[in-house]
Every structure is written in C-alpha cells, then in structure tokens.
C-alpha cells in the first residue's frame, strides 16, 4: 500500500534525518567516538580529523556529546509526549463520555492552565521542585496534556453521539468499554496526526528549559544544555553553541516534514492541527 516512490522528497528527507537522529539516540554508547564526560583535548578546539565537530568548553569531544545529547533530548521529549497523550486523551475522552459537572470542572481547569503561558508556569513550578529527570518529564507532560485534552475531548464529543456508540450504550456496556473500545479506535487518526507536532513542541520546550539552566542538570546535557555550556564562546567567534542549536532546529524541521506528509496523506485529517 505504501509506495516508496510516491513519498514526496521533503518527506523522504524528513524520514531519513529523523531516523538518523533516532539511530544516534538508541546506539549512543556504541557510535560515540569518546565518552560523554571524557576530556580529550583543548578548550574549544577546532574541527579536525580526530574531533569531527571540534571540542567544547571543557575540552570534551563535541560529536560524542552531541550523540549522547540526542539520547537525552529524544528520551525526555518522547516520555513527556507519551505522558501528555495518555493523560490528555484518557481525561478528554472521559470528559466527553461522562459529561455533566465532571466535564465542566475539568474543562474549566484546563482553560485556566492554558491562560498562563506554558513556559512561565513551568518556571514557577520548577522554582520549588527538585531538578530531576522525573520532575522534568512530569511537568512537561502534564502542561502539554492540556492541549491533547482539548483535541481529544472535541473529537470524542463528535464520536459519542454516533449510532455505534449509542448501540453500545444500549447494550449496557460500561464506560471504560465505551472509551477504550468504541471511541479510542475512531479518535486515533486525528490524535496521531497531532503527535508529531506535540513532539516538536516538547523538544523545543525542553531545549528552552535546559538553555535557561532549569532542565537537564550537568554533567549530563541535552542539546539545549549544550548551547548553554558553549554560549560564552560566541562572543569570541567560536560557533560551538550553534551546533547543538542547529541540531534542535534540524530535528524539529525533519519531524515537521514527516508530520506534514502524514497529515496530507489522509485529507480528512486536515484542519485538525493545533498550535502551541
């Protein structure tokens, strides 16, 4: 069914680059030429045959840091996106099916959360929470779940009045059957279309937090953290910070290209795009 020749060039590029980043993330310890924290050369050494991207602010191999950074960046972004989808869609479906005061309470609370800029609220919460990986994933996942909730609820409200759902209700099926066996399979495609965009948002959000020094803590570093580590070199004309920054942009663009293609492939999904 999926004809390789009919995939547009832009989507092919996107798929290729996304796969490359995923490969780097999965097999980081095997493909990185040096260790993550290993000091192997001068501070901000130039690009050479032994250090393909040069060295960073402490003399660590930048290519190796980038590969390990891909692992941390993609892991946290995937975990946060998964959390936001599970939380957002289950709550959204429940709100649509149960309705009444439960729906009202949850929807107004989501409105309230969304009336504060995500980054600002994340900063407020991170000022008291410990800076750990789990905190970071929870904060990112829960804040992003508000957007998935809105989409899931909107889709489920439409499905909930369809004949087959009515039939299931008359059969006497319970709420969890209605949610997971009737609504979920039918709501899956608009949600999947949203998945790529939420992932990009998670990558950019994590990078911003780490860049501000409130995300992944040293000695580990995601790409945003690496920009922070190397930013002081910029004023001396050393572009080391631009490499992780560019990688973030490249990952976001590649996933965007793939998401666009998936979105266009089934035209009835068009218009289901959120922004955020």
């Amino acid at each position, binding site marked *: 069914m999926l004809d390789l020749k009919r995939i547009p060039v832009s989507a092919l590029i996107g798929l290729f680059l996304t796969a490359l980043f995923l490969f780097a993330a999965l097999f980081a310890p095997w493909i990185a030429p040096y260790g993550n924290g290993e000091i192997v050369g001068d501070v901000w050494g130039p690009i050479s045959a032994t250090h393909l991207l040069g060295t960073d602010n402490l003399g660590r191999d930048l290519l190796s840091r980038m590969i390990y950074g891909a692992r941390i960046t993609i892991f946290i972004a995937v975990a946060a996106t998964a959390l936001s989808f599970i939380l957002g869609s289950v709550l959204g479906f429940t709100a649509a099916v149960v309705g009444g005061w439960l729906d009202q309470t949850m929807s107004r609370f989501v409105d*309230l*959360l969304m*009336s*504060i*800029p*995500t*980054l*600002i*609220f994340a*900063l*407020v*919460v*991170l*000022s*008291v*929470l410990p800076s750990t990986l789990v905190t970071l994933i929870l904060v990112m996942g829960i804040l992003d779940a508000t957007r998935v909730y809105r989409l899931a609820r909107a889709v489920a409200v439409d499905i909930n009045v369809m004949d087959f759902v009515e039939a299931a209700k008359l059969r006497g099926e319970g709420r969890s059957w209605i949610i997971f066996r009737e609504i979920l399979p039918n709501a899956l495609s608009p949600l999947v279309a949203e998945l790529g965009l939420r992932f*990009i948002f998670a990558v*950019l959000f994590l*990078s*911003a937090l780490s*860049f*501000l*020094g*409130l995300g992944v803590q040293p000695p580990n570093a995601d790409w*945003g953290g690496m*920009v922070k580590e190397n*930013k002081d070199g*910029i*004023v*001396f*004309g050393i*572009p080391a*910070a*631009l490499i992780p*920054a*560019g990688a*973030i*942009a490249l990952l*976001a*663009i590649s996933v*965007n290209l793939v998401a*666009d293609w998936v979105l266009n492939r089934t035209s009835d999904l068009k218009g289901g795009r959120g*922004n955020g």
Partner: protein
Amino acid sequence: MGSTLILRLIAQRLALGVLLLFAVSVLIFAGTQILPGDVAQSILGQAATPQALENLRRDLGLNDPAYIRYFRWLGGVLTGDFGTALSNGRDIADALGGRLKNTLFLAACAAVISVPLAILLGLLAVRYRNGVIDKAISGFALASTSLPEFFIGYLLILFFAVELQWFPASSTVFDTMSFGARIQAIALPAITLTLVVLAHMMRMTRAAILNVMQSAYIETAELKGLSAFEIIRNHAMPNAVAPIVNVVMLNLAYLIVGVVVVEVIFVYPGMGQYLVDHVSKRDVPVVQAVGLIFAAVYIGLNMIADIVAILANPRLRHPK
C-alpha cells in the same frame, strides 16, 4: 440598541478577564506550595536548628494556613507591595519597575517591526497565491517555527556583533542612555523576537484573508472587474480586520513569552532575565510576582483581542 449589546458583551469579557486573573493568582500561589519544605528552610539551609526555623517561620507568618497567606500575599500585590526577595532582601516592586519598562520597550520595538511586516507579507502571499512568493513565504514559515530562539539569536550575534561589529553582543541598557544608543543596543534582540513571531503571524494572516477571499461578495467584486489589490483593499480587508487583530494579539502574547529566552541570550536587564535568575535561586516571592505579571500581560492581551473582535464584528454592530 446595538451599542448596549456591545457594551454588555465587553463588560462580560472584562469581568471574565478579572475573574481569570484571580484564578491564575491562586494557581501560581498553589504551584509554589507543592513541596513540604518551606521558605524558612530554604533561607536558613539544611543545617538550621529547629529553634531558628521556628522563629523565622513566626516572623514570616508561615505558621498560618495557606489560604491566609494567600490573601495576605494577594492584598500586598493589589496595593503594589510584592514583598522582599529572599536572596538579597531587596524590595521586589522596586527591582521590577525598571525591568518591566525594559521588557515592554523591547517587546514594543519587536511588535512595531513584526506586525506591519507580517501583514504585508501575508497580503503578498494571498495576492500571489501558489506562486513563488507564496511558496517561499510558506517555506520560511515552516523553518522558522522549528528554529529555537537561541539558534536565531546566537547566529545573529556571531554575524552582526562578532564578524561585522555593527551591534553589541550583549544588550546593556541604563537610564541615562540616549534613545539612539538604546535602539542600537536592543536591535539584535528585537530582530530575534521579530523572526520568532513573524512566520506564525504571517501564516495566520494569510489564512484569515484567504478565508474572506472565498466569500461570494469577493467573487462579485471580481466579476465587476476590480483589480486584485482593489478587491483586497476595499472588500477583503474590512472583513479580515477582526481575525487579523486576533492573530496580532495572540502573537504579541507569544512575544511576551519569547522575551524570556531572548533576554537571557542577550543578557538584557528585563523581567525574563530576572525571573530565570530567581528560579534557579529558588526565590519563591520573586517568582510568584514575576509569574503573575507575565500571566496578567498575557491575559490582558488575549482580552483585548476578544474585545476588538467584538467591536469589529459588523453583525454585532448592526443587529436585526
């Protein structure tokens, strides 16, 4: 008849905005109360004796239940008293004044460049729809929504501040600075912010105008033989004003958030930089105050967008 309806809608929207702001203040206050540890612990550190902790808690009023502390905080905020910073004991309201002005100045400069530019480019994209210009604008929009602020920011620093030395790499501003020098200092951060919001604003403007262009009266105008620009100016624009203003306001709200990262990139003495510094110092009173101000500006801009949409809607102005 029509004006009373509009007034009632606007009053409702204002009341909703105020209500929302109160709810947000509760949320921000609650968000900093999640952990069992308290302010006294973070001032004195782990080695503090229980007696010292107890004394400080009594002095700061931390033994009162959370809702009493909330109302005390809210009362202070409403009278312009944000309390004192834990990290240096200075009055928060004093420190905020100048920084708020700096941030608003930077955001305003970015808005002055980006809004007309976005609308112009949006119009061009519609005028030459599916042509080279439209494709180029769409491609640029896709790229720039994926670029993190710091990528654009450091690229600009590397090129314009380090290579060409046209602008300073860090945007230091002080009160006695002349207007020209101030503009030069904030040129790079303003351009960065512009590039960040431009694409989104442009794309939404294009969509808003295209939506209007598909109406029947536009087709009539076309059949009358009007030129494309006349159609856009006389028929499409008046109807597209409301959605465009909405787009602009939403993006200005986004600008307020983007400012946080941009200020850190350019070491600009504004609210964002102040917030980030004090989040890492775990200085809760400062974070609460700055968080609330950012949220208030954000809610305020969204409210203005709604009110303008009400005012610009011809169906509400001339009800049957």
